[in-house]
């Protein structure tokens, strides 16, 4: 195993432990955050705040480096425009997220942790992603 694979493995492990501690694998906690007019549970806001405070500070320093320590360059998303694809995709994601309270990270950790609901959700999530991939390849979407 080369060093960049080990770095990715360690980063994934840190992410997984963070998600497990944060409580986000419990989809009812997530739904509680999204339920502004009911039994509101602010926990997700603390998770997002804790994460974004770290990235907002640390990313500034990291991105000032000429290159990452184990790769030739930073690979950041090239797109900057707020377009229809972005907004429609985000809107569809939000509906799915609001229906059950799973987003991709907690669902994958929940699957590994033996949650029955995640075992149903994750294969459907992969199928949804693959569906978009096929549609895009056939040129049905993505042309504006």
């Amino acid at each position: 195993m080369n060093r960049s694979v080990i770095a990715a493995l360690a980063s994934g492990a840190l992410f997984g432990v963070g998600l497990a501690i944060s409580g986000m694998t419990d989809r009812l906690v997530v739904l509680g955050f999204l339920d502004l007019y009911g039994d509101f549970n602010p926990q997700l806001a603390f998770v997002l705040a804790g994460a974004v405070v770290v990235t907002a500070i640390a990313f500034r320093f990291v991105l000032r480096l000429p290159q990452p320590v184990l790769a030739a360059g930073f690979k950041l998303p090239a797109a900057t425009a707020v377009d229809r694809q972005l907004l429609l995709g985000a809107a569809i994601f939000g509906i799915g997220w609001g229906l059950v309270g799973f987003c991709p990270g907690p669902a994958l950790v929940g699957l590994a942790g033996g949650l029955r609901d995640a075992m149903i959700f994750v294969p459907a999530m992969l199928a949804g992603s693959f569906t978009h991939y096929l549609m895009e390849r056939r040129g049905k979407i993505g042309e504006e």
Partner: protein
Amino acid sequence: MSSWAQGLLGGALIGLSATLLLWSIGRIAGISGIVNGLGTAPRSDRAWRAAFLLGLMLAGGIAMQLLPYAPSHLQTGSTSLLLLAGLLVGFGTRMGGGCTSGHGVCGLGRLSWRSLAAVLTFMLTAIATVFLMRHVTVTLP
């Protein structure tokens, strides 16, 4: 540990993870993007994705077993609703180029307007969906 401390600590670890990935190999820790690239990225670009997801699921799954959980973890949802939601989440995150981690944790950390627009949009539709599901009763004739 109180729920807000748990949230802050877990969140900080997620932020550190994203920082480690960017600092070491220059990549964004967006879960949906990492998963999607596993099937479609060039071969040389797949090993790190597999390693990240292996670490995520192995360490996250073990941590879940060790941590004391609220009983709500054991509640089970409707199978058809879970399937529908999974399809929408998979489709939408691929179309919109990111999820809570890619646009949320990393995009907001990079001060990207594009990601902020995505986060506001999915928060809004998620909140609206929960409102409809929990507080609006549809009476069929």
